[in-house]
């Protein structure tokens, strides 16, 4: 892990699914190797409202451009400030008027945590990636890494609903979508989708706890391997504060930021 300085390359703040897509460019241009499922802590140069950095799954990586993409859902003052700050930096860049003495960069610590177990996948395995809400951040990079290895994936993404601006997301081959309001794809919850009746060798899932639990009941117990990515509240992100603790079936409290965020469902007592 290392601390790096990023400039904002792009921010798509009209993703009406509620996620702001932010592309951050590493100023030094030498991104460390990032595994699918790892995350980064993101913070501002100056921020007097909320001081701590925030964890975001690294949704895409482009080593050539030295960029990482994060999807930011506005949940409170911290994420709102981050999105506003990225917008401000973008506006300044577009007008080519940097304001002196104002910080025009974003801080990031990456890569953090343990990513998805994908090394030992064999060709021909049936892989399912499921996301709920902001868990969508976990889908893209994982799929890309698997396809690089020549492994086909099935994707199932659940969301509340989309509006016109959310058109970028659509059902394609092997990509299925559920919306609670029926505005796209299958109407209902992600765990209601008929494709879950199928047989899969591995299931990777990221989303709210309720969804992860229901999904494990539905399909996880049948699949030889199911992993989930957790989003426990993190304060430091690097394994120091011990606030993101998750109790495993063996009784140990482990750090989601260090020993996770990806866990085998068999390790988790609540599933």
């Amino acid at each position, binding site marked *: 892990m290392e601390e790096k300085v990023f400039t904002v390359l792009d921010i798509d703040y009209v993703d009406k699914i509620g996620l702001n897509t932010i592309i951050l460019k590493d100023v030094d241009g030498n991104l460390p190797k990032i595994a699918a499922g790892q995350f980064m802590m993101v913070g501002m140069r100056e921020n007097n409202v909320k001081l*701590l*950095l925030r964890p975001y799954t690294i949704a895409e990586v482009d080593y050539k451009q030295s960029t990482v993409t994060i999807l930011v859902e506005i949940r409170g003052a911290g994420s709102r400030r981050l999105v506003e700050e990225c917008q401000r930096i973008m506006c300044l860049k577009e007008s080519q008027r940097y304001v002196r003495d104002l910080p025009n960069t974003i*801080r990031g610590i990456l890569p953090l945590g343990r990513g998805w177990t994908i090394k030992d996948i064999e060709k021909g395995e049936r892989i399912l990636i499921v996301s709920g809400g902001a868990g969508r951040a976990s889908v893209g990079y994982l799929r890309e890494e698997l396809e690089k290895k020549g492994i086909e994936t099935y994707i199932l993404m659940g969301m509340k609903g989309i509006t016109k601006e959310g058109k970028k997301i659509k059902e394609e081959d092997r990509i299925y979508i559920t919306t609670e309001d029926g505005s796209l794809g299958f109407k209902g919850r992600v765990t209601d989708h008929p494709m879950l009746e199928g047989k899969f060798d591995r299931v990777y899932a990221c989303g709210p706890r309720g969804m992860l639990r229901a999904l494990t009941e539905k399909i996880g117990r049948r699949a030889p391997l199911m992993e989930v990515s957790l989003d426990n*509240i993190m304060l430091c992100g690097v394994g120091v*504060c011990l*606030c993101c*603790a998750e*109790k495993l079936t063996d009784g140990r409290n482990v750090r989601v930021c260090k020993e996770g965020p990806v866990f085998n469902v068999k390790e988790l007592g609540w599933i």
Partner: protein
Amino acid sequence: MMRVKIGGIEFKNPVIAASGTFGYGLEYKELVDIEGLGGFVTKSITLKGREGNGYPRGVETEGGMLNAVGLQNEGVEHFIKEIWTKIKDCETEIIVSIAGSSVEEYTECARQIGEVKGIKGIEVNISCPNVKEGGMQFGRDVKMTEGVVKAIREVYKKTMIVKLSPNVTDITEIARAAEGGGADALTAINTVLGMAVDIRSQKPKLSTVTGGLSGPCIKPIALRCVWEVYNAVKIPVIGVGGIKDWQDVVEFMLAGASAVQVGMYNFAMPTVTTDIASDLEMYFTQKRIESVSELIGAMKMF
């Protein structure tokens, strides 16, 4: 110029990372140049391992954070065998924080630490607000403070620092009790009791309901405590609570701190301690301050 001596330990500069916010020094190795630090205090160690409290254990609040970790650690034996061997060659001073739920636990833990060659000092945590037994109970009572400090003093001969709680009616009487018990120095303050409620779920944001508040929002409280303690005892005071930059350090020193600890801000900016140390050196050079002692308690009264 920046050197400061507390008990038998000479720190190269007065900036120390606070207990619980720097792990065991290993976690930040890749992000912080540890040799730039005056020192660090380890996460508190108890005689036997503890699993800590349930999740959620921490939440950010306005200008600070609440935590209720509950002294999770793997026990003193594990520390000595597995952790100390990995950190003992760090180019900085390491103070081992100890905690317990009974006098015997404190003394046994201190005795075992005392037998380890190379560990120069301990910080006795009698002010943890997040455990059901012990912890802050000791630090809230004059007799219990004096009792536990005295008992540890009997078995531990190296530098002993006692960390005080702000959650008391009069911090000076606890400070005097610790001094009377034989402490070499005092750290003020541990976290301030607080709580936060999620208005959507209408549940508390911590599994323990209340927890310890830290960060810049508690700085004025910490500063007041340091000043009161400084005026009440003769031993050195280490100031901690909401420090984020060199100006804060100067402020704590003027109020009476001989050295400082940085806590929550390590999370916000991992390099904060070494940044402060180099900024402080620049300030000392510019102001032609030759020794830290010129600042300690130098606040002018109108």
